[in-house]
């Protein structure tokens, strides 16, 4: 049973990709293949979560894939966002038809993307984790450049170059960590395994480990949109098709943070909590500052959502810097809630783009009058992102603030939240201008937004609200995941 539970998340999307390669993308039939496989993936994630909570970590023979509570939580996040994105893809592609060949490639690459991310969260050692994250860069390159216009190509180029360079730097960090591990007495196989490295943490050479951990955090942090190698994020998220942006914001960024957490688990016993706390706090505050400042004068609503992702990743990095149990629980909850809310936001922005043909906020006015359902969904998603209850982001942000003050990082947390407040204000102003007010051409017919295409978005919002009201069945999993993330 164990190997099936672990292999299914990787095999299901791969088989869907194969299906698309062989049969192609037909709007009525094969388009739903992706939904089927991600629904099965979600079921598998639930089963895995239950098994891991009851029986502890699982692994495949050979140790390539491994699932503990943290992996199970991340897989749940991956599965739900992937399900929403695949559910919304047929509606999105129907509104913006491309050539048969291009939609087929879209289908294949999207499924490969999901497979790579599932592999990353189920990775058994740093080697597999690195290869999976690098694979996500390769696979999403053409997804980002899907539209083939100048802006999309520019975004795709920047994305591939910056992310590949960042991942190479992370690889250097992993190489040095392997070196330190080997000199501490670990065997070839164990020196890349985080459980073994944590056991031998006090034997690791501090100077080498410091360099290694710093490089790994900067490299993986770049993939999460943290400064200094963040420049790809606004371009890639704004130019990619909406379901792809949703997947990137909702899953890829958290998976990169997951990699940072795995490194942190080794770094804290080996170097003391101070080193990574300082590094992550600096990166978090810088990212928050940049995102907040650039949100103020933002004129493109997809870029606005991308900078909002950066801001939330900054908050998550701040939580990682704090590192106490409450902070880690809040971090994991925030990743889940942000993933869901951002997915809905990006998906609705995709529909707005199709209806209005422009991504500039000044071109969209009085949306609430023209397409009330779409405007409502977009507005609710933005409100959820801003942290209004009952969305779970309210609880997670409150948790981060409390954890920060309790851990003695009061000033840092206050600064972070002050910057988040600036971003909050900017988001409200821009979204309000888009949604509220009279429609520019009142005589026009309202644009149709069928309930079928709205269903995935509604489901996402319901999930965020549910998560915010009660943790319910996932409480045990969340506690175990926080423990696995190294909170003492």
């Amino acid at each position, binding site marked *: 049973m164990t190997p099936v539970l672990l292999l299914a998340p990787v095999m299901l999307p791969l088989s869907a990709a194969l299906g698309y390669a062989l049969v192609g993308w037909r709007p009525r039939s094969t388009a739903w293949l992706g939904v089927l496989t991600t629904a099965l993936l979600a079921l598998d994630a639930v089963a895995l979560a239950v098994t891991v909570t009851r029986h502890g970590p699982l692994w495949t023979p050979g140790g390539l894939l491994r699932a503990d509570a943290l992996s199970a939580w991340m897989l749940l996040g991956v599965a739900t966002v992937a399900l929403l994105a695949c559910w919304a893809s047929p509606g999105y592609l129907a509104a913006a038809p491309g050539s048969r060949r291009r939609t087929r490639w879209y289908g294949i690459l999207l499924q490969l993307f999901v497979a790579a991310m599932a592999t990353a969260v189920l990775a058994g050692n740093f*080697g597999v984790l*690195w*290869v999976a994250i*690098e*694979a996500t*860069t*390769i696979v999403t*390159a*053409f997804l980002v*450049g899907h539209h*083939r*216009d*100048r*802006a999309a*190509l*520019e*975004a*795709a*180029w*920047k994305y*591939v*170059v910056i992310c*590949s*360079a960042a991942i*190479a*730097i992370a*690889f*250097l960090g992993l*190489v*040095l960590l*392997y*070196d*330190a591990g*080997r*000199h501490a007495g670990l065997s*070839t*196989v164990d020196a*890349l395994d985080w459980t073994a490295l944590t056991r031998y943490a006090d034997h690791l*050479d501090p*100077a*080498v480990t410091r*360099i290694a951990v710093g490089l790994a955090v900067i490299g993986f942090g770049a993939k999460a949109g943290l400064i200094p190698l963040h420049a790809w994020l*606004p*371009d890639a998220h*704004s*130019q990619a098709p909406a379901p792809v942006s949703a997947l990137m914001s909702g899953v890829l960024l958290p998976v990169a943070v997951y990699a940072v957490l795995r490194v942190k688990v080794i770094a804290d016993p080996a170097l003391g909590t101070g080193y990574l706390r300082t590094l992550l706090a600096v990166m978090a505050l810088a990212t928050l500052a940049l995102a907040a400042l*650039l949100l103020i*004068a*933002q004129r493109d609503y997809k*870029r606005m959502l991308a900078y909002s992702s950066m801001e939330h990743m900054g908050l998550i990095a701040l939580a990682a810097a704090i590192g106490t149990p409450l902070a880690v629980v809040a971090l994991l909850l925030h990743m889940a809630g942000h993933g869901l809310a951002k997915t809905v936001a990006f998906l609705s922005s995709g529909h707005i783009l199709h209806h209005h043909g422009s991504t500039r906020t000044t071109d969209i006015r009085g949306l609430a009058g023209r397409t009330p359902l779409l405007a409502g969904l977009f507005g609710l998603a933005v409100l959820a992102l801003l942290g209004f209850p009952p969305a779970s982001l309210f609880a997670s942000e409150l948790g981060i603030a409390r954890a920060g003050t309790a851990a003695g990082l009061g000033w840092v947390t206050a600064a972070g939240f002050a910057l988040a407040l600036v971003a909050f204000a900017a988001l409200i102003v821009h979204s309000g201008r888009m949604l509220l007010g009279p429609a520019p051409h009142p005589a026009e017919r309202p644009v149709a937004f069928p309930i079928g295409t709205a269903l995935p978005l509604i489901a996402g919002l319901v999930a965020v609200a549910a998560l915010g009201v009660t943790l319910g069945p996932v409480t045990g999993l969340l506690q175990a995941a926080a423990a696995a993330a190294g909170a003492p």
Partner: protein
Amino acid sequence: MTDTTFPLALDLSAGVFLLCAFGVLWRRQLASMVRLFGLQGAALAALIAILGLHERSVELLLVACGLGVLRAGVLPALGRRALGRGTPADARETRPVVNVAASLLAAGLLTLLAYVVTRPLVALSPSPATAVLPAAVAVVLIGFFALVTRRRALSQVVGFLLLDNGITATAFLTTAGLPLIVELGVSFDLLLVVLVLQVLATRLRSTFGSTDLDEMRELHD
């Protein structure tokens, strides 16, 4: 390998390895950059082969052969094909962000920085192999510098490949390589990245008319 020729051979191949990185910053012709990158790949393969001969490891020798084929053969061939499609005027690097003389001096400073930064690594296990580690780390820094300061698409790709060469050299000099499966995964990923970049560069040329990255000014805040 005797005890005196081993450090000498290592020093020589590491020296050629580092000098190729300098050469990439020095030259303006994109074709020369690709050739120098190929030479660097050969030097890297030689470095690993020397390590393999010293430790009498067949696995290292096989890895050296594979790496040599990939980085001194396949990747430069891809680069030459990408160049062949452009016009002769395309074949040069337009003014880089930092001019050539300043780039060379910056590269010298980065080499000194590499020596300083790798002190704890060399101290962890002093040996002739780790003594040339600064050269590998210097190539990483120089590759990153080239990636950041060049304006042509192909020069950026060569910078990225230099970065990767340096990291591979670091991996082999510190611990005689990572597990084979990781090395295979890394090489495969590298090949895929270069292929992706080549396709993107072709599309760039057909959409923008040239691969001068300064032409891409659509996305900004």
